[in-house]
């Protein structure tokens, strides 16, 4: 009888079929031929005839092979076929074929990873969140602190702050190499904002008024010519230096523009030079495109005082002489014997530490605690992400332990296993990086709507990515991945893993990995607790901020801010200008008051003003007849109806009236708490008393005519010790409106004001709640940010507990079966498994709470009305974590309830 298996194998070409299935095909066909042969023989055919009759069953072997190759089940995937052919060719000595075989092998491994899709998705998401959040944090740090200034030798450039006014000729500037000034155009001086509109340039152009020395002081070379002292004379031809950006984008980079007079509003301007590329202002936050001489500001400002009366307030920049430091120069200035009171608040701040923009006061961003908070936040996120990822990777490889053991037993080298794992981790790294870029992009797009401590407007920062950001992105990804995967990879590529095949899955190695998972769980839980406590504290601070009474009726209040383009000009005397200004203010008030639903309107700013809070809340010397105190005293200027419009009650004495305008000392209403601090008996005793606030030019003498109820001034996070309310004799561009439904009035107010004041370009209408929301921007940012990450960390932590208990229940099946056989109940086993998971959770919770108490101190100043040790927050977070962990563990241990010892042991 022929060997039918050999017969088929010789004739049927099975290249490209899966080896194990090809053998099946051969065996099946051989068995059928054998059956046919036996039947022919049984019918009485001779061997040769029976063989011939049998072989007639298959005549076209190539056609049969072709039909079999059409089966997707039988054939090898393309990659594997290529790999096999390349491997065969490599055996024949083709070197390139060997490389192709290796490459296709790696590619096949990559394709097979989709089997673990859930694990990869989870790991990539964790990596993306961890790296993305760190990148966002670092991009802000980079923009605020690290990015080099766009001019040389920035370390020697300082801003002279803390003095009411420093003229450039002042002896105060003697110790410096050079000095220059920049007109202050914050919204305190809204009317001084230069507004230039070039013909053909539609957008609003940010313009800064500077003294002629400005570009030289910064060490910048202007293309064309720099400003000269002649340009800064009253009546000189209007000239400007434009940014490279404006010149190249809006003027097409044409060289003839430089030196040419260009049509512009309100006056034609000669462009004398172009600033170096990427320069948009000396301070971080400036996005200027045009610089004009400081004297020109008076002619192009929104609503400047009359010519001649205009002395622009200057921000002075100075360059230290080589060898000098800010501290030595400050000391030298104080030693010169100049007016000591004027020198009291003098500070030299490196320009690179300043954030300034036309919409916010200059802010010193060299805040140690802010930097520590931001850096600490990044580290916390990194630790949490690493712990989560490490637990994930460990669990993943724990499940594949047997697979690895088989591979080692079959002779796979450690190098090969490490290579396989590297490919897998590479996939995580690539996926995580793409995810991180998405998280960062979305995060940075959302950031400008939020603000940082100190009121830094993130929208004005240069948040573009530079090499530092990329370096940190790569570094963080590698650090996270190496930190998370190093240990698992080391454990699963070691040679003795093969011994587990013999010892079974309950070998001692499982015990050690179980301990490691417990340790990781504890680490993860403690990081989660810190994030959750931080989130909880911020959420509570926001709730407190919205719920707490600010002392004025924020719910029925509107703040209206105007920006008037048409300046009040043509007045010879300041008095005439002031009268016109007051008249315009009165017209605006009447227009608003006439609207239905408006109860009252007053000129003045709302007491809470997030942008100016820092400047408003500086400590000042307050003198009464008996003593002198350092207090944070706010001064609220406004029309006589301001307090009643705000809903602040007068507790004693009277409110302000128009008759108080020219009285000396200035009549003032003080808040009750300030009255108590200045005059220990407070109350009525304070009425009629006089006091002095501040020193030097800023100082003023006031007489108490009334005592008002306490209200928050400046910021909810750090309110003033008290407020002095005085009458604003001139007009103003800010108004407070009292209405039953303030949110419905916005459009009507815009229309009404636009009808009585010509040339109004901006009417900003905000409800009291909007202002509080803005004031709580940092807390809201913290609440959103930490809540999001805390929730993700909680879910990962709960998943970790579930995985640990499920793993325990599975890996200790044999042990549990023996225990059951010896009399333990399923309930005992569930308790045991739960205890194994809840012990590290409890440890993590305790460590986390202790750590959170330390971390919370870093941002204690942001916690409005809360202590960093708020017991409710800590209790809720602790109980939530333990409760969620217990629930997850209970669900995971549930299958143990029906465990039968005999069944469990049999499956072993």
């Amino acid at each position: 009888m022929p060997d039918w298996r050999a017969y088929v194998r010789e004739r049927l070409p099975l290249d490209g079929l899966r080896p194990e299935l090809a053998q099946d095909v051969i065996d099946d066909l051989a068995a059928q031929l054998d059956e046919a042969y036996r039947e022919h023989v049984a019918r009485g055919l001779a061997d040769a005839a029976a063989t011939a009759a049998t072989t007639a069953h298959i005549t076209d072997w190539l056609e049969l092979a072709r039909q079999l190759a059409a089966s997707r089940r039988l054939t090898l995937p393309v990659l594997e076929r290529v790999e096999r052919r390349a491997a065969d060719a490599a055996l024949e000595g083709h070197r390139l074929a060997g490389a192709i075989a290796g490459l296709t092998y790696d590619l096949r491994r990559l394709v097979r990873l989709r089997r673990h899709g859930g694990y990869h998705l989870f790991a990539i998401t964790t990596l993306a969140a961890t790296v993305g959040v760190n990148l966002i944090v670092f991009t802000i740090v980079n923009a605020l602190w690290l990015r080099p200034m766009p001019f040389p030798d920035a370390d020697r450039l300082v801003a002279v702050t803390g003095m009411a006014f420093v003229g450039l000729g002042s002896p105060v500037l003697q110790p410096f190499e050079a000095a220059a000034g920049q007109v202050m155009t914050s919204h305190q001086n809204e009317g001084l904002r230069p507004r230039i509109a070039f013909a053909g340039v539609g957008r609003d152009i940010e313009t800064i008024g500077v003294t002629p020395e400005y570009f030289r002081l910064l060490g910048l070379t202007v293309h064309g010519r720099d400003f000269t002292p002649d340009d800064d004379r009253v009546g000189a031809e209007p000239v400007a230096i434009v940014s490279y950006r404006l010149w190249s984008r809006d003027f097409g980079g044409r060289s003839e523009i430089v030196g040419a007079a260009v049509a512009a509003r309100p006056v034609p301007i000669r462009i004398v030079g172009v600033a170096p590329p990427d320069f948009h202002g000396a301070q971080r936050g400036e996005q200027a495109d045009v610089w004009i001489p400081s004297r020109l500001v008076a002619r192009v400002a929104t609503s400047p005082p009359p010519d001649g009366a205009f002395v622009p307030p200057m921000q002075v920049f100075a360059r230290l002489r080589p060898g000098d430091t800010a501290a030595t120069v400050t000391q030298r200035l104080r030693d010169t014997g100049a007016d000591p009171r004027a020198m009291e608040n003098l500070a030299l701040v490196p320009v690179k530490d300043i954030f300034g923009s036309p919409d916010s006061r200059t802010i010193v961003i060299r805040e140690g605690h802010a930097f520590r908070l931001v850096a600490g936040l990044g580290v916390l996120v990194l630790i949490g992400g690493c712990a989560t990822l490490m637990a994930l990777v460990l669990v993943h490889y724990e499940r594949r332990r047997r697979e690895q053991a088989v591979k080692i037993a079959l002779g796979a080298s450690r190098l090969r296993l490490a290579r396989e794992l590297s490919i897998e981790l590479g996939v995580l790294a690539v996926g995580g990086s793409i995810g991180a870029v998405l998280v960062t992009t979305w995060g940075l797009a959302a950031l400008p709507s939020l603000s940082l401590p100190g009121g830094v407007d993130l929208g004005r920062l240069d948040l573009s990515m530079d090499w530092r950001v990329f370096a940190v992105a790569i570094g963080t990804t590698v650090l996270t991945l190496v930190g998370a995967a190093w240990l698992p990879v080391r454990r699963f590529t070691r040679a003795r893993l093969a011994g587990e095949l013999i010892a079974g899955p309950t070998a001692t190695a499982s015990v050690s990995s179980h301990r490691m998972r417990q340790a990781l769980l504890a680490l993860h839980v403690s990081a989660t607790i810190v994030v959750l406590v931080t989130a909880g504290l911020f959420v509570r601070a926001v709730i407190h901020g919205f719920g707490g009474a600010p002392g004025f009726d924020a719910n029925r209040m509107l703040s209206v801010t105007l920006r008037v383009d048409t300046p009040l000009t043509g007045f010879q005397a300041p008095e005439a200008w002031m009268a016109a200004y007051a008249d315009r203010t009165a017209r605006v008030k009447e227009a608003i008051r006439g609207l239905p639903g408006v109860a009252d309107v007053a000129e003045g700013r709302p007491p809470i003003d997030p942008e100016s809070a820092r400047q408003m809340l500086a400590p000042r010397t307050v003198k009464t007849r008996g003593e002198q105190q350092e207090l944070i005293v706010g001064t609220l200027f406004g029309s006589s109806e301001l307090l009643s419009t705000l809903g602040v009650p007068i507790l004693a004495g009277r409110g302000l009236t128009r008759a108080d305008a020219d009285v000396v000392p200035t009549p003032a209403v003080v808040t009750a708490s300030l009255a108590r601090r200045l005059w220990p008996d407070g109350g009525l005793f304070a009425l009629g008393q006089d006091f002095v606030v501040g020193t030097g030019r800023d100082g003023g003498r006031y007489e108490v005519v009334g005592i008002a109820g306490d209200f928050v001034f400046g910021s909810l996070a750090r309110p003033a010790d008290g407020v002095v309310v005085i009458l604003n004799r001139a007009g103003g561009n800010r108004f407070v409106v009292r209405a039953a439904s303030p949110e419905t009035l916005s459009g009507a107010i815009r229309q009404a004001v636009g009808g009585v004041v010509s040339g109004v370009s901006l009417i900003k209408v905000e409800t009291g709640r909007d202002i509080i929301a803005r004031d709580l921007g940092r807390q809201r940012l913290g609440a959103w940010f930490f809540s999001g990450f805390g929730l993700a960390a909680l879910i990962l932590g709960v998943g970790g507990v579930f995985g640990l208990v499920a793993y325990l229940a599975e890996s200790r099946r044999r042990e549990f079966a023996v225990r059951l056989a010896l009399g333990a109940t399923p309930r005992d086993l569930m308790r045991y498994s739960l205890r194994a998971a809840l012990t590290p959770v409890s440890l993590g919770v305790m460590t986390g709470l202790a750590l959170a108490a330390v971390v919370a101190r870093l941002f204690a100043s942001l916690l409005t009305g809360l202590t960093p040790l708020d017991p409710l927050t800590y209790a809720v977070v602790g109980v939530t974590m333990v409760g969620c962990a217990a629930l997850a563990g209970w669900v995971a241990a549930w299958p143990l309830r029906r465990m039968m010892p005999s069944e469990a042991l049999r499956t072993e």
Partner: protein
Amino acid sequence: MADHDLKKGSTELLILALLDARPRHGYELGKLIETRSGGRLTFRIGSLYPVLVRLEDRGLITGRWTEKPGERRRRFYRLTAEGRKTLETRRIAWEDFADAVNQILRSRHA
């Protein structure tokens, strides 16, 4: 002998129908078709085997090696649940089709 196209179009249905009763090995299927058709339908192993592979690919049948004491090792094919459903559908369709064709043929001779 039946027409080649008719045979080709009905092979799958024949195999499914024969596997409906019980699992059978490949050669047995060929023999049964021949026997039950009175010798009018014959299939060689070389033409029946690719059909079996195709049916298995589509999940209508599944093959399993069986080795009984005193017998040789053979691969038995059985219907899957999906295969059973397909058989029912195709059986009805075939009967409808054959009925319709028969009616036409008979009416022509009437």
